[in-house]
């Protein structure tokens, strides 16, 4: 069965510092991978997705993520964090064959001045 793990419940970074949020998945075949962001009081918004091809994908708001099959990971990165990036970030995994997309528990990002 599919599963997705976000090991960090919350992370605090300084504004301007780099960011990496971890996501590990469990699935036998090539998964479909997503990162969503939920700003305070807002709905969820898609940041980026990976289906196939180039393992480094670019998303909105300056985010990128890299699919590493050998590590079953899809970590989200940003070179320089802005205060407006403070939010909850969710990794999700899907697959063909009747499996629904499932979400990780989320990582809450705090940004300090």
């Amino acid at each position: 069965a599919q599963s997705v793990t976000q090991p960090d419940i919350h992370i605090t970074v300084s504004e301007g510092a780099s960011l990496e949020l971890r996501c590990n998945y469990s699935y036998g075949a090539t998964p479909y991978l997503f990162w969503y962001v939920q700003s305070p009081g807002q709905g969820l918004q898609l940041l980026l997705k990976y289906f196939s091809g180039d393992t480094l994908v670019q998303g909105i708001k300056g985010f990128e993520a890299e699919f590493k099959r050998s590590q079953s990971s899809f970590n989200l990165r940003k070179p320089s964090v802005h205060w407006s990036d403070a939010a909850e970030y969710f990794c999700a995994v899907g697959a063909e064959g009747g499996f629904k997309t499932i979400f990780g528990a989320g990582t809450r990002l705090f940004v300090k001045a």
Partner: protein
Amino acid sequence: GAGVSQSPSNKVTEKGKDVELRCDPISGHTALYWYRQSLGQGLEFLIYFQGNSAPDKSGLPSDRFSAERTGGSVSTLTIQRTQQEDSAVYLCASSARQNQPQHFGDGTRLSIL
């Protein structure tokens, strides 16, 4: 264009009452999901509709919860005999087809007194 619409945006009701939450997905989207998000928590999957297939009800927490999707479009989530632990934000999402990126509504905030 129109996104996923949920109504009502807020609902306050007394314990023991029944409630109905409505979701209007993006036109043409075949997949529809319901999630529950308690305060400060991640997404709890409730139910998934995909086209004309039987819905995946594996996430419904009890038999007080049910959902239907009429004509492959609008969906209603019904909670009977509400309990205080049902208080949460109920999110609906749709996608063009299975495992495509999900588009989320703004949610219904349900408060049980």
